[in-house]
């Protein structure tokens, strides 16, 4: 069913379909570059990179989860929780600021993973519950959100969010390094292969003797860790553990992953696509800002329309089960 129809399409159409996000990104950038004089300024480009970095780290974890055929709705809450914990932990120094959020967020990921892999409950509902749980935990440790932990001006931890190299913030490099590592992990390791296999045909993977439950558990742990790390970097960047961030972030991450060509039903996807999806989202937002006169209500209409345009553009025939 996959290949059958694909063969029949003219090749440029198939390029457009497979690389829809990349094509859209290039188009967007070209238009913005010439349409808005400030778009191409180094400062603006650095901002775009930095803005993308946090989401990219989260979307990286989401990519793995989605390729196994799952979904992680808890990332937004876990991200916020990670930030608060990092700011809280920073009073005991750099390591505490980094390890506290990773430990707690990794544990929440583990909880997700165990519930999904061992009990056969739907990932959607498990992670929906942990979305609530993480938010509740966050509120509990901030006395219902009244307390905001700040990171002291001289804390070494601040560097993680605010340090720069060649003008680009450290988070950009962290995100890049993680994405490269993630790409290698996905493409070139046995773990990556079993991620694809679990998503493509779980039962078969089990019969082939792959560690299905472990693979599933691990991707959720990864997603939790990465969301926590993104939260920690955000806290370092914003210099405080802001309690109100991350609401609805899961949808941004999912949208970026899917726009990047990862199949929501699992079994297919790339890290590069996800990075492109994230960049596309940031660029679109930046362009909306450049236009400047857009009513705030129109902004979400435009975002929705863009999302739609990209998914329609790259609609892969593989997703249409009737076309056999």
């Amino acid at each position: 069913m996959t290949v059958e129809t694909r063969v029949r399409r003219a090749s440029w159409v198939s390029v457009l379909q497979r690389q829809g996000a990349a094509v859209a990104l290039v188009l967007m950038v070209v238009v913005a570059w010439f349409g808005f004089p400030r778009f191409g300024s180094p400062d603006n480009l650095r901002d775009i990179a930095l803005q993308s970095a946090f989401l990219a780290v989260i979307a990286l974890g989401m990519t793995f989860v989605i390729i196994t055929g799952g979904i992680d709705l808890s990332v937004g809450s876990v991200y916020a929780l990670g930030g608060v914990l990092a700011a809280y932990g920073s009073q005991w120094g750099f390591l505490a600021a980094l390890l506290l959020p990773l430990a707690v967020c990794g544990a929440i990921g583990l909880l997700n993973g165990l519930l999904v892999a061992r009990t056969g409950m739907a990932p959607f509902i498990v992670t929906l519950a942990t979305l609530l749980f993480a938010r509740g935990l966050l509120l509990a440790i901030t006395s219902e959100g009244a307390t905001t932990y700040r990171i002291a001006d001289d804390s070494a931890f601040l560097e993680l969010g605010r340090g720069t190299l060649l003008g680009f913030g450290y988070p950009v490099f962290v995100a890049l390094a993680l994405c490269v590592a993630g790409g290698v992990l996905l493409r070139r390791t046995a773990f990556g292969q079993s991620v694809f296999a679990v998503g493509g045909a779980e039962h078969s993977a089990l019969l082939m003797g792959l560690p299905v439950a472990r693979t599933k558990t691990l991707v959720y742990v990864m997603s939790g860790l990465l969301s926590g790390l993104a939260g920690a970097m955000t806290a370092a960047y914003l210099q405080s553990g802001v309690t109100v961030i991350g609401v609805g972030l899961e949808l941004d991450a999912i949208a970026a992953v899917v726009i990047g060509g990862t199949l929501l039903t699992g079994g297919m996807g790339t890290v590069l696509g996800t990075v492109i999806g994230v960049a596309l989202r940031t660029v679109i937002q930046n362009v909306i800002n450049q236009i400047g006169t857009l009513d705030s209500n129109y902004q979400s209409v435009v975002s929705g329309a863009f999302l739609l345009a990209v998914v329609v553009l790259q609609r892969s025939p593989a997703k249409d089960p009737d076309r056999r």
Partner: protein
Amino acid sequence: MTAPAPARFDRRRTARWLQEYGVYAAVAALLLFNIAFTANFLTVGNFRTQLVQAAPVCIVALGMALVIGTEGVDLSVGAVMALSAAVIPLYLGYGPLPAVAVALVAGLVAGAFNGVLVAYLGIQPIVATLALLVGGRGLALVIADGQLVQVHDPTFLWLGSGDVLGVPVGVLLAGVFAVVVALLVGRTTFGRQIVAIGGNRVASTLAGLPVKRALLGVYAICAVLAAVAGVLATARLSASDPADVGLLMELSAITAVVVGGTPLTGGRVRVLGTVTGALLMQLVAATLIKHDLPYSTAQVAQAAIIVGAVYAARERSSR
């Protein structure tokens, strides 16, 4: 048979029973808890309040259950509620009936939009409806010029506060829809086709079922039900509030459906379970408020209850 067999059998029976009746048991348990420990719980007014508040979620969840039965999901229901709420004040000048009709048509159009994306363009439901989730509320705000509008038409407001034979209109509607959807699923060709499509779409296509048409229909029904919920919410609030109406409704509705025992993998629709799921989540929320628990505790408790209920109702694989 070896010795431990009877014990194992018993546990399996309990598990089966829980899977089948878990939601109902949970609702019963929560009711008992409240009767015992919550002040002023056993009053007509209180039950009325719970039912009235559960009605919109319940109506949306019924549509959602159908969509989930086809192995889909509709994230746009909240946005559709906003759209339906946004158009009401624009047409209320022509009378309540035209206004409601236009709101439902808005839902129908949104549903058809989703349906075309899913059925004819083959886009995955979660992404297709995500587009409308992102853009739909914005559109509603554009239509309403970003403003909350007070509604004064008494006939229209009756939908939110009126009674028929002592039953609030919204509750009555939810009940009627539940019966209709149950009949639809159990007794009609369309209903059986939905379940078959969710079970095996390729096989359904090859068996000559009108797969695309059925999918289109399902998304349309779901969105129209969401529009009905938007009308009810507007009437109850006596204001059209596109910025907030139906916010996060998609998650509440999906939770109700799944807690009610309908698997997200499609191929099965439990209507009574869905209604009960909506009631359960309503009772949980009410209990937490009535005991004046802080928001953080309430969230954690809800998470635990969702996991517990779904855990009990999950499909076990036999091996």
